[in-house]
């Protein structure tokens, strides 16, 4: 029989003498607590009796016990000597992954670690320079000297705008701090964006303008809600433990869970089978469904009137603070533009009731959601109970929702939250579920005033770095920990421009003579070409393998100690427990060394903890404010990392406050209107931010805002499928959460999805002759891309229909290959793919038209045709993939 993926080996058990090091998972927002058991390979292994192993349990272990498996074990080098490590979810934790629950991602953390004899052996280990088209090892000194000289030349001759940076937002506080200190404080380049946005803009403009923090809730709020509306994600698919430890227990206690997402996965099926409901909107129509729900609520006067009276800005509050100073922030121009701001509940209600598109019939027709379900959702969320008591309702959103109609959807949902009384009480919260963990502390401020991008009304907006690159203005692209091209909409437009500016430029390095290398790269820059630096843990195609001139190998999770927060602002120390491969260095070290060579001061750090200590000050007032932890560390004569290590896997939730006796207190939830802070005010270095007990707005109260459909509807109608097109959308697959760095090097995960898939409804498949396991081409000649213009003068200049009329929208063609999975789990007339496979990037088919209010991408919006091209080997063999249904409860 064929059994190649079923490797078994004996899993060595840790002896009593094994060291135990705490950390948290490297992957999703939830950040489960883990323990690393480490012992030298020369030591005697532990035995199956509890008295003979460090786990203190008899083998075989009981259900829910600390079970081991081949994928939880590896051998690493620690101080140059081979050591066993067994990486197990912390069985003792009572936060996050209570009792040691784990996912297929975190459970296989051991397989992430570098091993010279395993699938991770291709980690980048030394700096590389492209010479005659081939990546050639060079020394750190050589690489850093070249980088600094070319970087300095670009800034001096072409300006800071020409120095483009594209970087992860999440890969640890020490690294992001160093990167942003370099980019903002010293370079001052507006040509900067994070891995998942085209520009340095907020993910949730509607939240920001209403006054909601993205990550205000604690995980217990998701459990304690009586009705939970989840928009644009299935947490079981993408944030596993948040579902199994916090939402499933809620459902088991009677929570009514409403999942609004066009694709039914196991969590949706579970909710539906246990008293919940699935709302299945056509991509981009969420706003209509949300406002139809809101309309039913206000028509029936089910809104939380007491909450609205107490916490919603009236006409005086709405305008408070305006009329003075610059109106040059995104928040100010959005709220004063007249399209969103209201004078309070009554005006908002009048507006809502006067929009015909929010009628149940219209909303239901466009969204394809059963009107009965929309009505039921309104009842579950807001209809008072027989005894007059209100239902505790919470709302969770994530990218499927806020990347469909970024401004409109987030405005609409914020208003719905406000009227159902969600936002500031236990079990009554609104927040993002989260994607990556929260690892950003900014070492400077984004220089928006230097951005050449202007919106109508002379308001500057953060620069769309993709459009700027496509327009040919970026002379140097420094790309850190992201594939950039495939993670942007309209990926192929970017790829074509990289080929033109980098590969086809005649100035290519042909020797390792440092002077000549620098000279050549300067010539490339001066001739209108682009030089590319890429910093990562693996060689990524094409940004590293095809385009990078210089590659810097980065050290990552487990190879250096770092800090980061999870989706309930829980800060932990992620301890180093093994040696980084080769000469790989943490990102902060690499950036600091380039910065120093460019002559910038303040980068002379000697340890990761030193960077964190400097960053602490910049966290003040933020949701992950850990400044007082640093103060406590100082008082106790410890480093910040030493102090953080004391919190183990429990960590501490930001913002952190210090009592007079030196005791540190975390923050369970933000906007906690029931929280009582000391009446005497903040003592010492404590800072009481408004959002601790009120909201992030001009008054501390909430802004109830309009969410007009017509700012987006022209795009939606233009995009809507023509002829045999189908809606095209994408997202994460559970087993491919990590999108191709670690997961394709973990056999257990790779065998599940060795190639990209496209989910297609049986009715759509049948008419096209497509069966599960077929190879298909998913293609479109209607991929719109906003190009060239950065200036809007008249109010509507950036509206899609105006851009189209004025020739600023370029239609391009894209095609990706996939294996078809025919399943009723995807809504009819919609295709769904894994969003980020570097070989077959779904984002190539997503319209590259930033939301014209926020500047963010609506990644989930696209259309495509699909046709069968043949049969994949997986159709009739049994080793890879599964075409079984994932939506069964």
């Amino acid at each position, binding site marked *: 029989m064929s059994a190649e993926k*079923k490797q078994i080996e004996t899993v060595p058990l840790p002896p009593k003498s094994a060291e135990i090091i705490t950390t948290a998972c490297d992957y999703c927002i939830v950040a489960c607590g883990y323990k690393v058991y480490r012992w030298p390979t020369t030591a005697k292994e532990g035995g199956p009796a509890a008295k003979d192993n460090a786990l203190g349990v008899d083998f075989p272990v009981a259900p829910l016990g600390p079970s081991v498996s081949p994928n939880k074990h590896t051998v690493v080098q620690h101080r140059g000597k081979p050591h066993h490590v067994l990486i197990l979810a912390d069985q003792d934790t009572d936060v996050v992954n209570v009792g040691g629950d784990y996912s297929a991602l975190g459970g296989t953390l051991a397989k992430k670690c570098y091993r010279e004899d395993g699938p991770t052996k291709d980690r980048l280990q030394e700096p590389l320079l492209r010479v005659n088209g081939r990546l050639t090892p060079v020394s750190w000194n050589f690489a850093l000297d070249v980088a600094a000289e070319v970087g300095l030349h670009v800034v001096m001759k072409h300006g800071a705008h020409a120095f483009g940076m594209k970087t992860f937002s999440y890969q640890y506080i020490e690294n992001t701090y160093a990167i942003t200190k370099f980019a903002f404080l010293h370079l001052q380049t507006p040509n900067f964006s994070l891995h998942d946005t085209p520009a340095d803009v907020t993910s949730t403009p509607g939240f920001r303008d209403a006054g909601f923090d993205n990550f205000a809730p604690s995980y217990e709020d998701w459990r304690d809600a009586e009705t939970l509306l989840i928009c644009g994600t299935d947490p079981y698919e993408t944030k596993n433990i948040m579902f199994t430890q916090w939402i499933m227990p809620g459902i088991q206690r009677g929570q009514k869970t409403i999942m609004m997402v066009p694709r039914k996965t196991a969590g949706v099926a579970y909710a539906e089978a246990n008293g919940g409901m699935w709302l299945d909107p056509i991509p981009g129509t969420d706003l209509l469904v949300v406002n139809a729900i809101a309309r039913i609520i206000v028509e029936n006067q089910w809104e939380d009137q007491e909450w609205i009276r107490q916490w919603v800005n009236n006409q005086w509050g709405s305008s408070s603070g305006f009329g003075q100073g610059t109106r040059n922030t995104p928040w100010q121009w959005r709220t004063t533009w007249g399209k969103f701001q209201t004078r309070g509940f009554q005006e908002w209600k009048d507006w809502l009731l006067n929009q015909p598109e929010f009628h149940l019939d219209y909303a239901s027709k466009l969204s394809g959601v059963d009107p009965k379900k929309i009505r039921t959702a309104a009842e579950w969320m807001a209809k008072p109970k027989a005894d007059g008591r209100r239902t505790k309702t919470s709302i969770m959103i994530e990218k499927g929702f806020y990347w469909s109609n970024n401004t409109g959807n987030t405005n609409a949902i914020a208003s719905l939250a406000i009227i159902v009384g969600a936002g500031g009480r236990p079990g009554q919260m609104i927040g993002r579920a989260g994607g990556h963990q929260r690892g950003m502390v900014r070492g400077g401020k984004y220089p928006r005033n230097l951005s050449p991008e202007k919106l109508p009304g002379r308001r500057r907006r953060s620069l769309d770095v993709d459009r700027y690159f496509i327009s040919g203005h970026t002379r140097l692209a420094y790309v850190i920990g992201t594939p950039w091209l495939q993670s942007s909409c309209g990926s192929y437009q970017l790829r074509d421009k990289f080929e033109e500016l980098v590969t086809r430029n005649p100035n290519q390095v042909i020797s390792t003579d440092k002077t000549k290398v620098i000279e050549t790269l300067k010539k490339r820059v001066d001739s209108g070409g682009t030089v590319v630096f890429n910093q990562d843990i693996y060689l990524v195609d094409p940004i590293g393998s095809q385009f990078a001139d210089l590659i810097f190998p980065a050290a990552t999770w487990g190879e250096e100690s770092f800090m980061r927060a999870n989706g309930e602002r829980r800060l932990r120390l992620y301890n180093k427990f093994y040696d980084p491969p080769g000469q790989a260095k943490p990102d902060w070290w690499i950036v600091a060394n380039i910065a120093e060579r460019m002559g910038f001061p303040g980068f002379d750090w000697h340890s990761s903890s030193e960077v964190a200590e400097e960053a602490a000050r910049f966290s003040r007032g933020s949701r992950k404010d850990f400044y007082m932890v640093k103060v406590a560390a100082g008082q106790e004569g410890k480093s910040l990392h030493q102090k953080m290590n004391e919190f183990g896997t429990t960590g501490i939730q930001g913002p952190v406050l210090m009592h007079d006796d030196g005791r540190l207190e975390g923050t369970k939830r933000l906007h906690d209107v029931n929280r009582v802070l000391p009446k005497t005010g903040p003592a010492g270095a404590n800072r009481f931010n408004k959002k601790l007990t009120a909201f992030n707005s001009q008054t501390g109260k909430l802004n109830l805002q309009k969410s007009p459909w017509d700012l987006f509807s022209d795009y939606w109608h233009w995009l809507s499928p023509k002829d045999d097109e189908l809606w095209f959308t994408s997202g994460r697959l559970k087993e491919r959460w990590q999108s191709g760095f670690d997961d394709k090097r973990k056999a257990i995960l790779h065998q599940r999805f060795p190639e990209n898939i496209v989910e297609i409804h049986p009715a759509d498949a049948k008419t096209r002759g497509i069966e599960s396991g077929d190879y298909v081409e998913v293609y479109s000649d209607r991929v719109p891309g906003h190009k060239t213009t950065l200036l809007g003068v008249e109010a509507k200049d950036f509206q899609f229909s105006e851009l189209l009329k004025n020739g600023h929208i370029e239609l391009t063609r894209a095609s990706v290959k996939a294996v078809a999975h025919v399943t009723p789990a995807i809504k009819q007339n919609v295709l769904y793919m894994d969003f980020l496979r570097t070989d077959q990037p779904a984002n190539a088919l997503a319209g590259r038209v930033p939301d014209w209010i926020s500047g963010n991408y609506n990644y989930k919006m696209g259309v495509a045709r699909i046709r069968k091209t043949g049969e994949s080997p997986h159709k009739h063999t049994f080793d890879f993939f599964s075409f079984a249904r994932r939506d069964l409860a």
Partner: protein
Amino acid sequence: MTQNFQNASCMVSRREFLFASALTVSTVMLPFSGFATSNQQAMAKVGTYPRRFIARLEDLKEHQPIVFEFPDSGPYASNILVKLGRPAGGGIGSDQDIVAFNLTCTHRGGSLAATYKPENASLGPCPLHLSSFDMTRHGIMITGMATESLPQILLDLEDGNIFAGGVLGLIYGHHIE
């Protein structure tokens, strides 16, 4: 030897070491192709045990599972034998559709008894954390939390008799095959 499907239960608090004796381990060289960064052959070990009679072929009806214990007796040793009605990896019989799997979820030891879904050829969702496994594809996880596929029981067919002879994969709770 066989027992009623519904009566099977794997949930125990503690149990004795499962594979105490009679264990032999055969090492098989298997091609490990299609893997992103590695074309080398991987060593796969398959635990083999004294062959045990499970059922007569003629008694096995499509979608009517038989639960049996293997390689030992006891809770984690509960397995399911099914004629799926469609060909499967490792399937025996003229239609290659007879397979057997261990009934303990590899994630955290939940019982997959009574979770067989005939129309999906799957086991699960596990009542604990909802993992489910594809019985046509060597127990690969369809969706869920586990770090290992569901152990497949290696079957033999001889003179109309079905025998279990080995376990492909590590059964939950153990550290050695």
